[in-house]
């Protein structure tokens, strides 16, 4: 078992997503520390991909900035290792199947584990295809996180039963990005997940305000925020650490109070 469960132990969790290398590796290092200081319980490090088909425009542009700056998977491993020297909370990678597969799935898992990563989120790897990745992740002590969506319905039990780390509940149809409101019945989804597994579940996609974070955390075990943080990176660039810390604090406080 990885250390992912620690994120959910004391209160509802706040999970922060940051694209590695946006706009450069030094900034990512500062921003990750800022998010931890702001109260994040788990960090999702995005390994940039050229064609991220599950992302909306905000994260797509972050991937472009990171790749334009020359960020590679090896850079991500090196930075993770450095972050792990001082950061104790769980960290997972969020990337696409081809980034892992092309690197050599076993070599990737080995290097990720060696760098101190706890798990992996691959949005283009559904339940049916997890055999390509899950056994090798497990071999190196990493949790391959399962996702469920508003359209999963009859699939939720099957997915939850084999889920590891935490269950990533996709709040809405469509791609990542902030939304004015979330209309899915998250409470009903949580209930189905809980009926089939003991591991925690957190809600992502579309959350940007403390009110949404509190509401989603109350309906599950935590809230995941990506695009709203990346917007601060797009706005403040190399000076984003301060604004990210402040924003994460407001969101983490809201989630923790749920």
């Amino acid at each position, binding site marked *: 078992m990885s250390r992912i469960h620690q994120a959910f132990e004391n209160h509802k969790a706040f999970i922060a997503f940051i694209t590695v290398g946006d706009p450069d590796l030094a900034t990512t290092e500062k921003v990750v520390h800022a998010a931890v200081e702001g109260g994040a319980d788990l960090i999702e490090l995005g390994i940039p991909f050229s064609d991220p088909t599950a992302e909306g425009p905000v994260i797509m542009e972050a991937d472009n900035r990171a790749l334009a700056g020359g960020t590679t998977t090896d850079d991500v491993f090196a930075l993770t290792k450095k972050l792990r020297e001082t950061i104790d909370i769980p960290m997972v990678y969020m990337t696409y199947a081809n980034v892992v597969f092309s690197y050599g799935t076993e070599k990737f898992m080995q290097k990720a584990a060696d760098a101190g990563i706890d798990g992996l989120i691959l949005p*283009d790897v*559904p339940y049916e295809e997890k055999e390509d990745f899950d056994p090798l992740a497990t071999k190196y002590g990493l949790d391959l996180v399962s996702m469920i969506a508003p*359209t999963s319905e009859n699939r939720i039990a099957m997915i939850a039963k084999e889920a590891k780390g935490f269950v990533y509940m996709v709040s809405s*149809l*469509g791609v990542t990005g902030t939304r004015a409101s979330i209309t899915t019945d998250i409470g009903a989804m949580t209930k189905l997940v809980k009926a089939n597994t003991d591991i925690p579940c957190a809600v992502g996609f579309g959350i940007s305000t403390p009110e949404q974070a509190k509401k989603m955390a109350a309906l599950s075990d935590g809230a995941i925020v990506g695009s709203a943080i990346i917007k601060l990176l797009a706005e403040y660039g190399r000076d984003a650490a301060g604004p990210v810390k402040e924003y994460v604090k407001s969101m983490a406080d809201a989630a923790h109070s749920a």
Partner: protein
Amino acid sequence: MSQSRGRFGIHGGQYIPETLMNAVIELEDAYNKYKDDPQFNAELTELLNNYAGRPSRLYYAEKMTKDLGGAKIYLKREDLNHTGAHKINNCLGQALLAKKMGKTRLIAETGAGQHGVATATVAALMGMECVVFMGKVDCERQALNVYKMKLLGADVVPVTTGTGTLKDAVSQAMREWTSRIEDTHYCLGSCMGPHPFPTIVRDFQAVISKESRAQILEKEGRLPDAVIACVGGGSNAIGSFYHYIGDRDVRLVGCEAAGRGIDTKDTAATINTGRLGIFHGMKSYFCQNEYGQIAPVYSISAGLDYPGIGPEHAYLHDIGRAEYVAITDEEAVGAFEYLSRMEGIIPAIESAHALAYAMKIAPTMSKDQIIIVTVSGRGDKDCAAIARYRGQDLRD
């Protein structure tokens, strides 16, 4: 290791977000229900024959044959279909299936615009809403097709992300599908993407080889020695090959777009320059860098300008049943001009890649041998771009 559904050897699969899984399962169930249904097939055949103009001709290119001095060359005239390309075969099939599933809206990606036009056409015919995603670069180089789609009542969404070409249009269509599934069918244009699309598209395009096999047997009393077709995602090629796969003596040749050459970065020749990867819902070969970032590919042909290839082609390559050769822009443009002058047929620049390879091998073959080349589309859409390639600025 257990393998999921929709595999061709190690290729294929369903590498898509969970949000879409029930949609592809629903599609697979519907396809399995209707594919052998006599009523469905009668309706589809009626549309193919009386709306699209099938069967397409198998034309003996006598002048070209004599000029090249080798194998007899037959052209499978998919360019004579309604909307001017093979794309309509698949669109009629998928739209009919979508209607049976109760869908009222079609979305599609397009490269050269041929699939977009075919989808918009079928949507107009069947009274369905239609949105086509097209790379911004492609919108510019295929402006006539953008106009046609709008004329047919479709919304055309220019895609500005990435390289602004076919791969970005596919990504955007997939994103759109995840946001609206209930009433929407993604009418994917090639034999690629997640299962069941590679199988569905192949089956709807297999009419090409079903006809050509019967036609060549009638005309020549024997099967061809080679079947040649161009390959981007590979839909006209898989359709052209399918009914010959069991005939081991028939050479199957897919012609990839080499662009400025397979030793340059400006190429889209996936089998010749790519390696195994996972993208756009499938495991197959892709042009990519050492870290798995998808390469910004290039070809003069917007329809072949794609960094991947359908999983069944990847499999046919693996087992050595089909061969995949690379044809440069220059060779394709040469064939485009050659067929126009020699036979009075202006082929699509995509199809010109297949013709260019036929021009290479026909003279090396004997006069009693036979080649069938699929002319997958007509070249009207390409005239302005080819004129520009030759240094002439055409204006309407």
